[in-house]
């Protein structure tokens, strides 16, 4: 397993080996699926769309419906305008979405198709919408693509009306439907009216009913998106995935915003809850205090199993930083913290966390890859891997347990239904981390050291 990974850390500048990121369009597709009755549309070769649908389906085990401009060589030379026009007509005819959300690919970007101009020229059926955004695959990562699509919805749809709607706009970050449900539960407990953009819950975790729904019940409605211009403020959860959209909303429609880390672990969730309190100006209900207290209780209970344990954490920047913060709160050492998504603030923020918790010798890396992380592990091992499915080769090669969190998880089930955010999410993370470490102990200790009580 991974037998050609050597210990000698080699500074690569051209060869990416075992990436921790993918390209923008898949993120845009996921974001668009979080809008009710929206069909994401990939403007490029049909392979992109196929790959993205495949990947989303494998992570969520749900249909990921999207269409493509199906470029051929001709379109690649002469531009994809007519493909897009044909596509839009066929889509509205056949699939009847309320809105088509078009994103570009490296192909259409390299050609230089001007989506704005193309769409403006198109005849769009009454009451229907086409929005778009640019998602060049050769810049950033799927996280940027996600953000760009969310911003696209704002740019294309949000309007300022005469009066406030009394709601806040929440940007959930690149998270699972289970996380979105947890946000909504907490917002409801805090009695805060909100619009969640996008809202993949009810779409990418839809129930089995015996009837396929191309547009399941979930998702932000177009009406809600239009009305975002009348929100009192917006709340960006996840600095990398959400803040840019909040900034777009501020710039375009003067909606003030507040950015928070993903509410993962105690402190980040505290900040989230207190921000909600600042908004409602009401007391925080006991039920939230109780959840929090239970989490802290658990953290103290489990500390002998987590304290000082070293973890390698990889995945998307906001998620990885959220997990990093939580494992630090558990007394663990986030030895290697790696994202493939570019952005130097990732490293800065990780370093701030290391400093805050006084841990030495931890390394954070943006634009990194798993090959590099594995080399580090070979030089100085860790007790635990935390990340997506692609960590499993390292897990097996080095006999280190892998706790699956983040994206993509394509070799397990159910993960997308349950949150990592909030106190409840942290409780779940704590359980998975502790179980992994304890299972490892139980299976690797000497027979005479097997403990009945732990």
């Amino acid at each position, binding site marked *: 397993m*991974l*037998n*050609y990974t*050597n210990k000698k850390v*080699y500074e690569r*500048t*051209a*060869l*990416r*080996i*075992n*990436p921790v*990121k*993918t*390209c923008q369009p898949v993120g845009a597709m996921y974001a668009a699926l979080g809008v009710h009755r929206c069909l994401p549309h990939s403007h*490029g*070769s*049909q*392979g*992109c769309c*196929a*790959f993205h*649908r*495949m990947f989303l*389906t494998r992570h969520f*085990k749900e*249909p990921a*419906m999207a*269409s*493509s*401009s*199906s*470029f*051929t*060589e001709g379109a*690649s030379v002469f531009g994809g305008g007519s*493909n*897009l026009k*044909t*596509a*839009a*007509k*066929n*889509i509205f*005819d*056949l699939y009847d979405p309320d809105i088509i959300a078009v994103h570009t690919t*490296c*192909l259409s970007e*390299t050609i230089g198709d001007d989506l704005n101009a193309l769409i403006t020229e198109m005849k769009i059926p009454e009451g229907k919408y086409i929005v778009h955004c640019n998602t060049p*695959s*050769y*810049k950033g990562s799927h996280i940027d693509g996600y953000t760009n699509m969310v911003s696209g919805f704002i740019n294309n749809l949000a309007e300022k009306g005469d009066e406030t709607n009394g709601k806040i706009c929440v940007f959930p970050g690149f998270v699972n439907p289970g996380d979105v449900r947890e946000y909504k539960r907490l917002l409801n407990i805090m009695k805060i009216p909100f619009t969640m953009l996008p809202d993949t819950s009810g779409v990418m975790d839809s129930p*089995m*009913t*015996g*009837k*396929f729904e191309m547009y399941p019940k979930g998702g932000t409605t177009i009406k809600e998106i239009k009305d975002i211009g009348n929100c009192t403020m917006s709340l960006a959860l996840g600095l990398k995935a959400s803040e840019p959209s909040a900034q777009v909303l501020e710039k375009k429609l003067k909606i003030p915003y507040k950015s928070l880390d993903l509410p993962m672990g105690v402190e980040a969730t505290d900040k989230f809850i207190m921000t909600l309190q600042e908004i409602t100006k009401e007391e925080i209900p006991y039920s939230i205090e109780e959840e929090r207290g239970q989490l802290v209780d658990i953290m103290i209970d489990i500390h002998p199993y987590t304290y000082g344990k070293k973890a390698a954490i990889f995945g998307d920047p906001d998620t990885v930083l959220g997990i990093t913060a939580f494992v630090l709160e558990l007394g663990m050492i986030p030895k290697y913290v790696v994202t493939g998504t570019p952005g130097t603030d990732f490293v800065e923020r990780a370093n701030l966390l290391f400093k805050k918790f006084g841990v030495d010798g931890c390394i954070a890396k943006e634009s990194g890859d798993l*090959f590099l992380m594995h080399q580090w592990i070979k030089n100085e091992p860790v007790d635990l891997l935390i990340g997506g499915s*692609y960590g499993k*080769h390292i897990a097996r090669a080095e006999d280190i347990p892998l706790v699956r969190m983040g994206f993509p998880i394509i070799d397990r089930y159910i993960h997308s239904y349950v949150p990592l955010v909030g106190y409840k999410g942290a409780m779940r993370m704590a359980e998975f981390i502790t179980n992994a470490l304890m299972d490892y102990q139980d299976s690797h200790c000497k027979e005479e050291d097997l403990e009945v009580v732990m």
Partner: protein
Amino acid sequence: MSVIREEVLDKYSAKVYKNRKEHVITVGEGNPDVVSANTRAIPGIITQRGCCFAGCKGVVLGPIKDAVIIVHGPIGCAFYTWGTRRHKAIADERKGEKADSYLEYCFSTDMQEADIVFGGEKKLKKAIIEAMDIIKPKAIFICSTCPVGLIGDDIHAVAKWAEEEYGIKCIGFSCEGYKGVSQSAGHHIANNQLIRHIIGTGDKEPVSKYSVNILGEYNIGGDGWEVEKLLKRCGIEVISIFTGGSSYRDIKNAHLADLNLVQCHRSINYVADMMYDKYGTDWLKINFIGIESCKESLRAIGEYFGDIELKARIEEVIADEIGNIFEELTYLKSKLKGKTAALYVGGSRSHHYQLLLKDFGIRTVLAGYEFAHRDDYEGRTVIPEIKPDADTKNIESITVEPDPKFYKVFLSEEQKNILKEKGILLNDYPGMIQDMDEGAIICDDLNHFETEEFLKVLKPDIFFSGIKDKFVIQKSGFLSRQLHSYDYSGPYAGFTGSVIFGNDLLMGLSTPAWSYIHAPWKSNPCLEARLEVEEYA
């Protein structure tokens, strides 16, 4: 015209209808049945098709374990083809030569904006240097993705440079996603380069009396290993497999085999064809999916070699294999008989699996290919009729000359005629239709809309397809099994594979969860519930 077909195509606009009606036929109505295929998907119509890159890198090259395949382009395409197809492989040693396996790795130049603007050749070269420094492979393949073709990076020049610099094999594959109309273009591009650069460069002679290559077998779920095991039991040496579990090391020697066995016609027929032209190697369309098919295929091979001893051994192996599975098979048949199936897979599986389904008494009501050509449906006799269009013309088609050193004739014309009389077709494929029942539907490039509609109309017990439509079908309440990935089961090839397949179907059909789809209170009206509480006490 078939009512069913019309019911499904009914909702299309005139323009789409005009296109799609050529792709959807009812078997037996045409005479001969003609299926439009290998044409562009209509923009906006949700096709399940992938692209040229997927066909080249994903299908044909991906399984070659000992080549470092550097995807030259932005990160996505490398990422999506990393470990996502189940072409198993293991590093090994054959005839004193080792072959590594790099399948757990994903290599890419991860092109950035500056590379797009200023060109990516420099980065590609650097990537090769780094790969040589770290991995030290004997072969590097470079696969281009969409923007590379547009910006004009010359990957072939880079490949040439690498060969000279490092004395390794380095091949460029210009398999940009926009080429052709489906994965098919990529197969062709890969085939061309294999014959140009690899086949014929090795010198490890077969050690057995009879030797073959298996073409178009990608070792999904270990199928290739199963087939190789079967052939070995019969005493037949497998020189190389294209390309499941295989290696640059082995493919080099393919020209030294006596016979080519073609499993997946679509993806590899160019190699079969060109090897026949260049080395005189006959090819036999075999099929190791299905019990009857396995028998027929093994016997055909026996007939080809015409050796009595070999034929006897083959019969022994068949008897033994059947003996091992007989009881389970009988049970499975009793459970599966009479079910109906729909199949929509890549280029050959929709054909192969119908035969396996038939072994269990399961009737195919709908079958389609994702990226087939007309010959895959109608048989190779139709090839001369196919008019190349703009898209196909863009894909290089090469011709080869007989190799002065290695060209050989294995069977005389007379021997070939004897075979023909025995019903064994050499260097030919009769297509899927001839194995289908009258009234069954064929649908080329079956799209999402048609899938939904066919489900409603045909209500098959089992729908075989891929990951993108799997959950559409499942959510509709139908059993859906992936035939690209076998839903992570397998092997399905060979005799024991058939039983694994049958068990998987039975599992899918018997899973209790199906009976829970409808909440009982949905059928139990509220009114009925308004009983007095006292009643329970």
